[in-house]
């Protein structure tokens, strides 16, 4: 055996390794591209996405009143806040909050507070929309599942929830109608 054939064999060896690796890599890419549609089918379908805006007429809502509307299968809380509630929400020291947000970051018009009515802990619907409901220690909402208290800006003040009630994307299409989504 000459030195040359050994070198050839070694070269053949590395070439074969390279072919194995590229073949395996292509196989993995192929398997992945076949798997993706089978996973992606679980994501929201076109008709589910199509249902994702809601228009709401605000004229019948009096000061101090709350209404609940459905958006994407979830309740959305719309509260026309009283001047006292607004004052209370604005007076809070933002640095003391768990999820630091000032009231002005959470509303477009101070009178209208619009939040998704789903507790950020584990997804229950907090109480506080109806007149007889407990509104919690901070005058906003109270989640009965695991005891989270929200203030008049929908911010988490006490209990296990990590975040403030989410504010959905919305815009005022006129002075008295909003489009959520």
């Amino acid at each position, binding site marked *: 055996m000459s030195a040359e054939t050994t070198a050839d064999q070694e070269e053949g060896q590395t070439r074969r390794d390279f072919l194995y690796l590229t073949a395996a890599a292509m196989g993995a890419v192929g398997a992945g591209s076949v798997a993706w549609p089978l*996973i992606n089918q*679980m*994501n*929201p*379908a076109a008709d*589910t996405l199509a249902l*994702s805006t809601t228009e709401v007429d605000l004229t019948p809502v009096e000061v101090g009143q709350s209404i*609940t509307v*459905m958006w*994407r*299968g*979830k*309740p959305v809380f719309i509260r026309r806040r009283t001047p006292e509630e607004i004052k209370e929400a604005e007076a809070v020291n933002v640095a003391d909050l768990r999820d630091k947000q000032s009231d002005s970051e959470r509303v477009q018009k101070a009178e209208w507070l619009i939040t998704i009515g789903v507790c950020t*802990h*584990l*997804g*229950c*619907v907090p109480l506080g929309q109806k007149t007889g409901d407990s509104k919690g220690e901070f005058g906003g909402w109270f*989640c*009965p*599942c*695991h*005891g989270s208290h929200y203030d008049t800006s929908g911010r988490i003040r006490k209990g*296990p929830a*990590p975040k403030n009630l989410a504010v959905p994307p919305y815009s005022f299409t006129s002075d008295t109608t909003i489009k959520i989504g």
Partner: protein
Amino acid sequence: MASGNRQKFDNPVIEWVDSRLPVFTLLQKEYGVFPTPRNFNYFWNFGAIAMVMLVTMIVTGITLAMHYNTSTAGAFDSVERIMRDVNGGWLIRYLHMNGASFFFIAVFIHIFRGMYYGSYKQPRELLWILGVVILLLMMATAFMGYVLPWGQMSFWGATVITNLFSAIPLVGDSIVTLLWGGFSVDNPTLNRFFALHYLLPFVIVGVVFLHVWALHVTGSNNPLGIDVKGPQDTLPFHPFYTMKDTFGILVFLIVYVAFAFFAPNYLGHPDNYIPANPMVTPAHIVPEWYFLPFYAILRAITFDIGIPFTDIVIIPAKLGGVIAMFGSIAMLFILPFLDKHPVRSATFRPWFRAALLVLVVVFVILGICGAKPPEGLWVPLAQICTLYYFAFFLVLIPFFNKKEPVADLPPSIHQAVLDQCKACAKA
């Protein structure tokens, strides 16, 4: 399964089949003459009982699926129709509903048996791990099954449990949307849960097959936890253990059907007879009883874990709870590698035995905490119990590895059985 030294069967039909596909030889070997330790107690019934429950659930489940309507508009009504109009529908549904509970009862006792007698130890580690895989699959199946009647507890249980995944950093919310197929638990969610609820039991059957296969490689453990040394230590599986298992199965089934007939809703929750309403959360959401201890562990983590004296949070409370809950199952997975003590059976390990029995009590207390609202004393109680649960695996077992004395074990199963008989005769 070498057909070379196959024994001939007298019956010509059986012989014709067996010479072409030796299924009868296999049955004879694995369930006929299979050498089984002669000192089993009744704890060894629960594997067979669990198997019977699995078959019961599949049979009642398939028949229920023939009448079930998989849509948010029709699911609740179709279940009520099964209860009122379908011939014998009430019986099939109550058997399925209570069957889930009794399947878990059998499996919990089966797991306790494995822990008490050290069945997870070398050489049965993989056998044990396959068993924990079955437990996880059962939990997923049971959870999705509970969603199908589309009552209030179905809906809100599904909402709370799927929201657990939102605790995962970065990708959590995308995963939840992927699970839901929308922006809340809704029709797409119900459809996929039904598809998976139908599929997973057959996956369980597959893993059960591997579990039994692994068992038949190592052979069964026994109450003394010592190895089988020869034929004098064993009995053929048939008729000795086919009879003992049948007896145990019948006693278990009596209790099961007593619940199905006389207290069918005792283990359920009345709120699930209210149709699902996404706008109203029930005052008190509780999972089915068999999830309560794990639910209590989830809720026991009420504090953020972060760097002290700063606002930096590394693990928020919600993620911490989820990690603790999955961690409690992970402990079972790694148990064979944590416990290095050379003695298997707790009969000869007084320290381990005491700690394990305390663990059982703690597990029951966690179950009670899980059923109560997370207020007042229930929170610290659940936290102490959670602490013990993890300390048992991560502190006590490693401590016993080093310090617990190794007892003198009986020379053989045969000898121990004989000595016991002599002691009885004297008394």
